[in-house]
């Protein structure tokens, strides 16, 4: 069968179950394409030999009742994988090989999937362009020298470039949805507490949430079904009744009330984003949903709040990288000297910057003015959503204020880089689910995404809305395979 790598996850599962394809054939196809795609720099660690072995083993005794039978897939290098190097995109973990598996990847393997390798990302998931990775930047398959977004840039590039049928990323402030939007793919950030954080290298504990990335909504729903589980090893994991997202997926969204927040019309937003949003509104209306104008008054405070909360938590979460137990160690005359050199040489500039911000906002004399203040504003932001959800079932916004930008374009201006996450960050602060779907192209032919934000634990609803819109939009990603020819 030709063009295996062009097939959706749903089709691949179907074909393996019908024995039209073997796991080995599928795995080989993705490996061969990945071998030809090294210039994208999507992988940090390839695990191809082992993947082929596993595929062969699967084919010898295929269990076709599984949800991901013999499906090869690569994952973001923030998930700890047993006996496979896990770096979080950082020099400080360059040689770190976990002896344990994250709950999410464990869930995936137990449904029959096979690890292809570990995907590039911004260092400790801190970035919006995948340029902070110690392992170099990632190219966007859409166009040469274009960033794929971040921090799950390798993941987005690998899905868009068909190096993996699906993948998982993590999203602290937009790290799944923004790269999905930049690469014409679908990315879901689930409700906080839906997917276990056990075994995922932490960035900001109260915001981090892993989620699926795929070519289409249905694939995304299937993967979400696999990864979402209550986990007693994560105290913030929530025990709620999880739906069979793919089975219950429907395009019937008649009567659903969709909120349009006026505060998301920000100054300087390109006309094409505004137009895209309008088109999206028309699509959902066409599907029989009702459009309601709403207000989320504290939207403009979300980004400043985020840039206090996330660095504060990160400054503490990253204290364990001290050269004592694992990872990089610089030599030092004494313990303190060793710490300071290890962390100075082991962390990249952006990570250091955020640790410094976080340390500062928590330090004595500044805690109330910054950290406490941010936690209070965070409540106001959450209250905005609670109010809105009294009137609507979901909220529709653009995913990003612009399409993908050029590599190097924003590296010297942290604030303009941070502004990329303006539409995605409020969702993390409120712990809500949000999905980005490709909805059109800008004048340069770069993809643009729309975001649907749901109520907590209401993933099914936003997947349904996304599914219905997807049909109407009928988006075709313009990928020329420029890097292969």
């Amino acid at each position, binding site marked *: 069968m030709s063009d295996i790598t062009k097939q959706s996850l749903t089709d691949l599962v179907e074909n393996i179950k019908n024995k039209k394809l073997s796991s080995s054939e599928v795995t080989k196809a993705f490996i061969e394409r990945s071998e030809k795609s090294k210039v994208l720099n999507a992988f940090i660690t390839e695990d191809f030999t082992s993947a082929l072995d596993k595929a062969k083993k699967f084919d010898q005794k295929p269990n076709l009742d599984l949800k991901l039978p013999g499906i090869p897939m690569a994952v973001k290098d923030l998930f700890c994988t047993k006996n496979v190097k896990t770096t979080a995109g950082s020099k400080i973990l360059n*040689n770190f090989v976990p002896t344990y598996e994250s709950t999410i990847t464990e869930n995936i393997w137990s449904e029959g999937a096979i690890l292809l390798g570990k995907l590039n990302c911004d260092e400790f998931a801190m970035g919006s362009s995948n340029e902070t990775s110690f392992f170099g930047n990632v190219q966007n398959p859409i166009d040469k020298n274009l960033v794929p977004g971040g921090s799950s840039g390798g993941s987005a590039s690998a899905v868009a470039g068909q190096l993996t049928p699906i993948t998982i990323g993590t999203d602290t402030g937009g790290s799944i949805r923004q790269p999905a939007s930049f690469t014409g793919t679908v990315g879901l950030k689930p409700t906080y507490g839906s997917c276990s954080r056990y075994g995922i290298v932490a960035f900001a504990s*109260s915001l981090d949430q892993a989620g699926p990335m795929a070519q289409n909504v249905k694939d995304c729903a299937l993967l979400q079904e696999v990864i979402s589980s209550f986990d007693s090893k994560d105290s913030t994991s929530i025990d709620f009744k999880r739906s069979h997202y793919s089975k219950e997926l429907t395009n019937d969204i008649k009567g659903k009330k969709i909120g349009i927040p006026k505060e998301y019309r920000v100054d300087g937003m390109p006309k094409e984003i505004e137009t895209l949003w309008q088109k999206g509104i028309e699509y959902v209306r066409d599907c029989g949903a009702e459009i309601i104008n709403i207000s989320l008054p504290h939207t403009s405070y979300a980004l400043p709040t985020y840039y206090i909360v996330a660095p504060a938590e990160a400054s503490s979460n990253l204290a364990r990288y001290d050269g004592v137990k694992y990872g990089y160690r610089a030599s030092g005359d004494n313990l303190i000297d060793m710490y300071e050199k290890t962390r100075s040489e082991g962390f990249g500039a952006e990570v250091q910057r955020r*640790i410094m911000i976080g*340390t500062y906002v928590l*330090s004595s004399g500044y805690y109330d003015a910054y950290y*406490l203040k941010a936690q209070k504003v965070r409540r106001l932001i959450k209250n905005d959503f609670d109010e809105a959800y009294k009137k609507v079932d979901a909220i529709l916004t653009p995913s990003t204020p612009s399409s993908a930008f050029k590599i190097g374009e924003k590296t010297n201006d942290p604030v303009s880089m941070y502004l990329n996450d303006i539409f995605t960050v409020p969702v993390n602060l409120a712990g809500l689910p949000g999905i980005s779907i490709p909805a059109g192209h800008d004048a340069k032919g770069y993809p643009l995404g729309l975001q649907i934000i749901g109520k907590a634990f209401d993933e099914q609803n936003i997947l349904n809305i996304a599914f219905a819109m997807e049909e109407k939009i009928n988006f075709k990603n313009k990928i020329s395979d420029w890097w292969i020819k």
Partner: protein
Amino acid sequence: MSIDLKTIKHISKLSRISVDEQRAKKLVGDLNSIFDFIEKLNELKTENVKPLTSIAETTLKLRSDEVKSKNIREQIIKNSPQDNKDYFVVPKVIE
């Protein structure tokens, strides 16, 4: 408010990241532009707002007091930068 070189040096000490003069100067600029942007929060009055410490809408679950983790010293020490089969080893601590 503005962050000066002295503050940068203080927080680099607290966060155990050594920075040379040049990097410190760069950080002064970076952090000041980031904090200019953060200062926007001061527009809001929040005296009567309860801080939100956890977004997870649940209470803390308690586990039973059972020893489940056995001796995994080899695994624990395996990744450590300086070899020793029993201990983690660090440069001498000066008390």
